[in-house]
């Protein structure tokens, strides 16, 4: 029939035309999906609706094809649309997922049969879709009339393929299919094409591979055809080609919401406080020895003993002498409240961000009780279960940034508190003892920040010295223990 004849001649041309167009797209620096498409080899043509054949021959421009919901099996006639993976205007390739539908406990992924652009979605979410009725409209690309010259395409450096093109041999396949074959070292001549006129389709390549390896393509995160980056042409004299490195990353802007937005607010408020910093070095050699002795005893009682309980208790003892550091000022700094409880906060780093639960009433807790409480908070923190009570009411904060790394820090005070301390990591360093001999010391640096409106340098310094003395000589804590 006339229609069929026209179709056949067109397909011969199309084979070559497609190659040229592919070359054009590959010239671009950015990796593009080949826009041209061979819709002559679609499985749908096996159904051979006569009207459709006429349609394609008549229009030489982009063809809008109705993609109907195909039979799902088990006699299912209708399904519910649960999720759309594409929207109008998106470009899809054959085998891309279009939507997810559900029918009677079965979740079905509907994939595209064509390459093209989505023009219309026939259903909304939660609508009932019918098998055999149109699901989406896809506009498939037009094949333009261009020169018959076949130019060697840069990306295809395999002789096998170019050889076929130049000779005008009738191994018909779209550039996408050719690339797939090339990536898997398959000779197109060995593959039996199941499309129109022996055209080789993607499915033919996949079947061929299956037979070879007993599996569909070597697993890759996306079983789609990704164009390889353009390779430089082969030259007779190899010269180093200096190509400027091409970075195809894009900036990404997103609004600051939720937790981050709240942080912005708090930090802006915090930095209105005039901070001053004070740093010092603590020799923890004695404490390290003490902890080693006490660790197994604590473990026997079911608790992991870190250094933090010691730091907290020493801080509390210090705060008893310098209660102004455990105070709170109002927004306009007109009133200062000396807090009775030492609710010392521990800054924790979670996947969501900074979280500061606090240990309540450290002033009446033993080191072991503090350790129990810290264990509990850590466990709740990692399982995302900290309650509001745990997170509020803090009066003083210690940040153990040293557990991650670092030596010095400039911590930001968390309002309504007036002071904060950041603890660096514990490092083994050489130091001189009283006799003048060198010994291996366990050194940790502490960086304090305080609200200069109500705290002066001397107060901070004296507090720090007291805290330091408790930690450098743990026996001193015994005398002031309450």
């Amino acid at each position, binding site marked *: 029939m006339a229609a069929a004849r026209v179709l056949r001649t067109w397909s011969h041309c199309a084979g070559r035309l497609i190659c040229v167009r592919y070359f054009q797209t590959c010239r671009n620096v950015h990796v593009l999906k080949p826009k041209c498409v061979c819709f002559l080899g679609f499985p749908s043509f096996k159904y051979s609706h006569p009207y459709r054949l006429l349609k394609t021959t008549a229009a030489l421009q982009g063809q809008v094809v109705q993609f109907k919901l195909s039979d799902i099996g088990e006699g299912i006639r209708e399904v519910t649309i649960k999720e759309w993976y594409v929207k109008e205007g998106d470009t899809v390739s054959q085998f891309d997922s279009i939507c997810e539908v559900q029918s009677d406990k079965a979740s079905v992924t509907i994939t595209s049969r064509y390459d093209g652009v989505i023009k219309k979605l026939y259903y909304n979410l939660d609508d009932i879709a019918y098998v055999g009725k149109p699901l989406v409209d896809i506009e498939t690309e037009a094949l333009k009339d261009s020169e018959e010259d076949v130019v060697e395409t840069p990306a295809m450096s395999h002789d096998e393929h170019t050889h076929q093109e130049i000779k005008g041999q009738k191994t018909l396949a779209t550039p996408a299919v050719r690339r797939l074959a090339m990536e898997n070292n398959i000779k197109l001549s060995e593959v039996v094409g199941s499309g129109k006129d022996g055209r080789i389709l993607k499915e033919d390549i996949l079947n061929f591979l*299956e037979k070879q390896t007993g599996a569909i393509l070597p697993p890759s995160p996306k079983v789609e055809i990704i164009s390889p980056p353009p390779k430089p042409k082969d030259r007779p004299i190899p010269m180093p080609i200096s190509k400027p490195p091409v970075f195809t990353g894009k900036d990404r802007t997103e609004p600051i919401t939720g937790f981050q937005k709240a942080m912005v607010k708090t930090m802006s408020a915090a930095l209105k406080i005039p901070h001053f910093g004070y740093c010092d070095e603590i020799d923890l050699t004695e404490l390290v020895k003490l902890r080693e002795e006490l660790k197994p005893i604590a473990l026997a009682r079911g608790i992991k003993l870190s250094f933090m309980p010691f730091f907290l208790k020493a801080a509390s003892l210090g705060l008893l002498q310098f209660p102004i550091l455990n105070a709170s000022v109002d927004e306009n700094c007109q009133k200062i409240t000396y807090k009775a409880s030492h609710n010392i906060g521990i800054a924790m780093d979670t996947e969501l961000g900074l979280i500061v639960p606090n240990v309540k009433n450290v002033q009446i807790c033993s080191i072991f009780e503090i350790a129990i409480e810290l264990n509990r908070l850590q466990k709740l923190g990692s399982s995302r279960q900290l309650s509001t009570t745990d997170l509020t009411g803090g009066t003083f904060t210690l940040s153990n940034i040293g557990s991650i790394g670092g030596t010095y820090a400039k911590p930001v005070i968390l309002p309504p508190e007036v002071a904060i301390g950041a603890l660096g990591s514990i490092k083994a360093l050489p130091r001189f003892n009283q006799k003048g001999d060198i010994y291996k010391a366990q050194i940790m640096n502490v960086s304090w920040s305080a609200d200069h409106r109500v705290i002066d340098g001397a107060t901070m310094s004296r507090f720090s010295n007291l805290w330091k003395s408790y930690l450098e000589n743990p026996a001193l804590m015994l005398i002031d223990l309450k």
Partner: protein
Amino acid sequence: IMIPFSMKNCFQFLCNHKVPAAGFKTTPKGGLILQSVSNDVYQNLAVEDWIHDYISLEGKPVLFFWRNSPSVVIGRHQNPWQECNLNLMREEGIKLARRKSGGGTVYHDLGNINMTFFTTKNKYDRMENLQLIVRALNAVQPQLDVQATKRFDLLLDGQFKISGTASKIGRTNTYHHCTLLCSTDRTALSSLLKSPYQGIESRATASIPSTVKNLLEKDPTLTCEVLMSAIAAEYAAHHHIKNHVHLINPADETVFPGVNSKVQELRSWEWIYGRTPKFSVNTTFNVLHEQTHLEIKVFLDIKDGRIEICNIKAPDHWLPLELCDQLNSSLIGSKFCPIETAMLTNILLRTYPGDYKLHSKWNILCEKMRGIM
């Protein structure tokens, strides 16, 4: 018979047993029986998905056995807040997973056997698989009254559900998986699968609760091991393959390249909670204030697991309107998640160094908000 087996050998195995051109009944066909060594629900779901994506099943169907440590698994298009008690799960350390197949919510523990029947699209037949299970059960215990229903459940004695079904249909491959209650903790099951959350309006697939029973309660000889080997034997006989159960490790990236990225996806908040279809929450809290009860109205619209619209109305004399508005605008865009809300509200409170009373009211409100997440 259990043989630790690498997947590469499996490929060999599958290749060697192709269906010949002229198939005779007695000719051995292809097929494979696998069992997971892992009890991690995410790893098992990931390897199930991996097999679905990458293994060619033409003429070589696969049966996969897996059991999980205590977890709740919701269907692809379900709403976890509607289906289970998330607060209780967090307290007990019970995992929540969203699978890729449809259907309803189930509770898994080591007393429950999961079976996945992988076939090509044209061999997809859920009833055939269920009949196979019934035959296997009757082979062990001929007196057992087990029947498959039209909804693809298995009923014991005509009234107790012992198995539920779900499936996934892809481009070329499909899988049908089902549970089998052997010796599951029924008290945990009923308490965890009851949602305490009020006022949820959503078009997500709702589960249909059923009375369940364990097979072990009916007959103490029906342990998980006994049942798995019976079903494996029946499968092998039906598909004319060797009755060898191959053990697989779903975390082994060399055998299943790409499986760990699937595990990460299945563990992510975006998949588990963020894939919930759009829903709204319309509820009220009662707070005690000076011997009277006050009502706080809450309306939330949640899309992709994040709060899109937030309208908390508390009486002005209890909490200043300004503070309420603050809370409303801050919650927009944040995850519908208790920990994120706690952190957010805690941080906000720092910008209001006010009186103790205000803080405690704020805390009460925040605790109530977290309670509905």
